[in-house]
């Protein structure tokens, strides 16, 4: 089945009682039990809710996994995934990992005996050097946030599999439409579904998909025990958003390329990071492992004052955190998404104070480019 068809028709069983084509919103906490001897499918909504279940089935099907799990936020999905490990375990993560994941690894990890090493995941030697006998998992983000660096996911996953290291891939930037890490050997995929999957800046949600029943059991246990679940209304809105994922992505990534090219040609822009540009270091690599380049780009204007001027003067994009919405969002990683990372570590990664990140939405691309250029003054 083609992805576009799958998006609309998988996991959406028509409600038997009424024939409704859209999944009903089960705003309910508990379910009547017919028989004390029989374990019914639905008992309590924290454990299983029919609306949430529909979304969980859909994401599992789209990513090609054995089971899906929906959480109250992307970071709740990441936390649940990290909590399947235990005291004494070691994790490897990218240096430029999302600030929220960084916060869990650095602030919560040590409290519970989980250690980590941050590496440049575009460099296989770096990853290899970080492995210890206690290494249990490797967290990957590709393309990375906000510099859009591309890691060789198939190669890393194959390498990790040989060593029994679990690979966890944050697929937020690409979505299963453009990149399906489980197909090339990843073990777990996580999403901030707040972004492209729900796509409308209206839901905070997280998803996880597993490649094996054993990992599904472990994540399912954490989801139910810790209870950071997604509510039925938000689960329904996420499913509603998913229906237009392909058309939104198609449009936004075309616009992203147009804007990236336009900014590259502007003399006030020192660097443009977008893997869709043929000159981007990860361009060829991403071609081999994904069906597109996504709709997020970042650009460095070389001067903090100019960066601030742009943030002040843009009219079309929302100046805000988050990304992956129908509305374009312009953000300032040093002060927003990556503020939790100490300044020195940040600049070491290349996240300068003159770097801006643009999540390209569904506005006219020419309007967007012109708006950014006029904002530079």
């Amino acid at each position: 089945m083609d992805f576009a068809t799958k998006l609309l028709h998988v996991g959406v069983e028509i409600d038997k009682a009424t024939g409704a084509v859209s999944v009903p919103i089960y705003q309910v906490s508990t379910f009547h039990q017919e028989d004390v001897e029989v374990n019914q499918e639905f008992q309590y909504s924290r454990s299983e809710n029919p609306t949430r279940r529909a979304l969980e089935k859909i994401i599992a099907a789209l990513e090609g996994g054995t089971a899906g799990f929906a959480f109250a936020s992307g970071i709740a999905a990441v936390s649940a995934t990290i909590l399947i490990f235990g005291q004494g375990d070691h994790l490897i993560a990218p240096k430029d990992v999302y600030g929220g994941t960084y916060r869990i690894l650095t602030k919560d990890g040590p409290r519970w005996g989980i250690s980590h090493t941050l590496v440049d995941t575009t460099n296989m030697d770096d990853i290899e050097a970080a492995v210890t006998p206690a290494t249990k998992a490797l967290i990957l983000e590709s393309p990375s946030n906000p510099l859009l660096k591309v890691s060789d996911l198939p190669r890393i996953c194959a390498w990790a599999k040989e060593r029994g290291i679990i690979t966890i891939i944050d697929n937020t930037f690409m979505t299963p439409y453009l990149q399906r890490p489980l197909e090339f050997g990843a073990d777990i995929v996580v999403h901030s579904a707040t972004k492209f999957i729900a796509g409308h800046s209206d839901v905070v949600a997280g998803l996880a998909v597993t490649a094996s029943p054993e990992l599904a059991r472990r994540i399912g246990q954490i989801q139910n025990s810790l209870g950071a679940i997604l509510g039925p209304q938000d689960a329904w809105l996420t499913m509603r958003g998913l229906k237009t994922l392909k058309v939104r992505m198609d449009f936004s990534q075309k616009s992203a390329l147009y804007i990236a090219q336009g900014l590259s040609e502007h003399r006030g822009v020192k660097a443009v990071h977008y893997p869709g540009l043929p000159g981007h270091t990860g361009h060829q690599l991403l071609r081999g492992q994904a069906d597109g380049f996504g709709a997020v780009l970042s650009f460095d204007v070389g001067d903090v004052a100019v960066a601030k001027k742009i943030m002040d003067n843009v009219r079309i994009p929302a100046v805000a955190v988050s990304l992956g919405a129908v509305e374009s969002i312009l953000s300032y990683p040093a002060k927003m998404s990556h503020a939790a990372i100490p300044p020195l570590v940040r600049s070491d990664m290349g996240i300068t104070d003159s770097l801006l990140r643009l999540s390209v939405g569904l506005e006219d691309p020419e309007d967007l480019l012109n708006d950014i250029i006029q904002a530079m003054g």
Partner: protein
Amino acid sequence: MKFTTKVVHVGVNTDPTTGAISTPIYQNATFCHPALGQSTGFDYSRTKNPTRSVVEKAIADLEGGSAGFAFSSGMAAITAIIMLYRAGDHIICTEDCYGGTFRVLDKVFAKFGLEASYVDGSCLAEIAKAVRPSTKALLIETPTNPLMKIADIQAIADLARDRGIHMIVDNTFLSPYFQRPLELGADIVVHSGSKYLAGHNDVVCGLVTARDTTLCEQIGFNQNATGGILGPQDAWLLLRGMKTLALRMDKHNQNATTAAHWLAKHPKVTKVYYPGLDEHPGKEIQHKQASGYGGMLSFEVVDADLVPQVLSKVRLIQFAESLGGVESLITFPYAQTHAEMPEELRSRLGISGNLLRLSVGIEDVEDIIADLAQALKK
């Protein structure tokens, strides 16, 4: 302002733009910044959402805390509290605590090196004896689930203060309408808001509030860092439920008292656990620290074979997990809420195959009793 007034006015007229009496549902993920380095106070909904903020302020006001926090479930709320501690720390918990709390301590946090001991919360000496140098918190439920044992909140809070440890009270069963543990010296109050606070069996949610502002900051940090937040629609439904809290609690209390007295006289019922009954050992402490007994009771039937009979014969009362809703629910703790608890502990506590837990709703109590009567009849 009296509690009943306060509870009706939670979230009233919070929208300066329109003056709407009811709080708007901000189904929104992110917020525009007026300019770089400036914020409206809202940046990203995981961190802070206007609808969730209203319900968070409400629980803090009702419990007497300095800040409140809303979570995607009662267990997510408990998790955010447990995450205040670290590997090597020790927590003392009520032995007949909610099965989900036991599970998260026993199955999840134990593997991260958090130690837990379980004590009879109604026995102060036993609690004192369990304190170790590494003890960081006491997690108390009163009345307990499902055996309705009463813990002396003030005495335990005094003990906790002396030893420099946190006193956490799960106040789900009574709600701030009947019992306000922070006023009695507790440090943190947690709720499964799915129960009486939301009250309609339609939302899964959790709430936390605390007195100390530093403690509140730490809980807020955990809420944002691990992201088990409550969505805006569910936050709004919780707020809506809270408005009738006082009316509902009075009715739950009245119906449960009547049902408990009726059950106590029933020939097929061997024991009734309800703090409103004269013979309840915790009645005096309950009088001292709470203004009601709540809507929860448990009872033992003479023969375990009666359990499946009652569960299949009840018509008005729904056989389902959870509690605290307007509809009466009956639960079999042994196989449902407390299934995760080791058999040895269950049998020692009295969570047997004869025990049923009843969440008494706000239907006409005569109908509830009639339903129980026909279900108990051979």
